[in-house]
């Protein structure tokens, strides 16, 4: 029996495709997410919009919060650890979370190194802004990649930028000749073998999800049409006027992302979306996407 195999890790990511993963901070919110049809929840102490407002050091959630959420829902429960904080990851693995997000939403613990994720049985998801960053994380063992977007902003612009960049860099690799791939790997700052694999297959070796700034059913549809295979929604649900209705609408929008008629239907009577922030108004040093490399 081989439990730690990479295939088993990617296998769970495959099962989440076409679904919505929701940030929750309490068992009550987790229940709302599960009832709305979420395929998984991300257990947090504070959602990104509140982390942003609160300031200070953002750390792994307390085991108590995670356990309470695990006891409440039967869908997979994910949790975040700080970039490079492998001890937090070890604790999350001991708690038997189903997926760990090594996340820029929390304050980084290591400014040079990310976690060596191959050492863990539990699968990891990591954020990226471009293909090089995605492939460095896959090289370290990430079984799932997501856009960083700009968490807690309610603004989709950064997630769009990151998704488009990854997709267009994949297309560029696919037309290169064998003798051009080493230079491409150097330029991307990415492991050569994975660069070669992508040049051959034309796709990432792990699923690619969207995160950071999704606030409406239309945002979910946009990201799916740009090539995301699943959508993470952080602050967008529980910072809106009617979380249960919005959660359900975003779930439907992710399945019917290419059906504008259906999207119009699910988007009506939703109440106010979260307010949102213009990215230009966030000082450089407060932008979460800049954390990690």
């Amino acid at each position, binding site marked *: 029996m081989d439990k730690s195999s990479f295939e088993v890790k990617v296998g769970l990511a495959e099962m989440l*495709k076409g679904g919505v993963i929701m940030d929750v901070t309490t068992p009550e919110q987790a229940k709302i997410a599960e009832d709305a049809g979420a395929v998984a929840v991300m257990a947090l102490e504070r959602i990104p919009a509140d982390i942003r407002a609160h300031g200070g050091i953002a750390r792994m959630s307390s085991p108590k919060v995670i356990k309470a959420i695990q006891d409440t829902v039967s*869908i997979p429960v994910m949790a975040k650890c700080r970039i490079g904080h492998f001890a937090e990851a070890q604790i999350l693995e001991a708690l038997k979370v189903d997926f760990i997000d090594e996340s820029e939403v929390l304050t980084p613990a290591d400014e040079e190194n990310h976690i060596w994720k191959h050492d863990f049985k539990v699968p990891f998801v990591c954020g990226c802004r471009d293909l090089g960053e995605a492939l460095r994380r896959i090289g370290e063992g990430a079984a799932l990649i997501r856009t960083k977007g700009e968490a807690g902003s309610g603004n989709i612009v950064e997630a769009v930028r990151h998704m488009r960049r990854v997709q267009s860099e994949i297309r560029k690799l696919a037309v290169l000749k064998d003798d051009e791939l080493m230079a491409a790997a150097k330029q991307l700052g990415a492991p050569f073998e994975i660069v070669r694999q992508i040049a051959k297959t034309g796709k990432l070796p792990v699923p690619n999800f969207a995160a950071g700034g999704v606030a409406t059913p239309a945002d979910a549809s946009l990201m799916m049409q740009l090539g995301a295979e699943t959508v993470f929604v952080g602050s967008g649900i529980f910072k809106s006027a009617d979380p249960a209705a919005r959660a359900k609408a975003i779930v439907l929008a992710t399945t019917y992302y290419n059906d504008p008629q259906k999207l119009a239907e699910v988007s009506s009577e939703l109440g106010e979306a979260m307010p949102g922030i213009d990215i230009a108004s966030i000082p450089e040093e407060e932008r979460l996407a800049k954390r990690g490399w």
Partner: protein
Amino acid sequence: MIDSKIKIGVLGIQGAFAKHISMLKNIGVQAEAVKYPEQIDQFDGLIIPGGESTTMSKFFDEIKIRSKLINFDKPIFGTCAGAILLSRNTADPLVNSLNLVPIDANRNAYGRQTESFISDINLEFDSKPFRAIFIRAPKLSNPAPEVQIMGTFNDDIVLVRYRNVLLSTFHPELTDDSRIHRYFLEYLVAESYA
């Protein structure tokens, strides 16, 4: 030979439906995702893929596809969450199953993701073992006498056939081994297709 005109619908609410579609196309039959109840009648067989059974169960009512699935009289293959949804009883109020196979399903019976695993299993119809991927897999129990046990892992029932419905608790669509999909096409679909 499997007839290349055979057309299989793969329920595309969410989950591993694209993997099933590419497996079917590699075998050489037609396959497409099903997201609307009115699509169903055109297919010679259906697959309900792995994914989250709670999510799919909610969609069955939300998009009014439940009765279409129950009354679909051609072959159906359910993998993992699909097997849960086709079983008689899930003992979970969040998953209202279609009750097309008289066997009970217990969700996440091996535990959480850290207990997911890969293992060889024995097949009733082939002497070569099958390398099976189990992801937060369910366990099947209390089969009615007419349910045929087609595959086992230790003492666990992992592959069954009941009339024209096939259930697996693992994910053949995540491997390159097409024997179980071929079995479904050759012995269940081709029979009703002819």
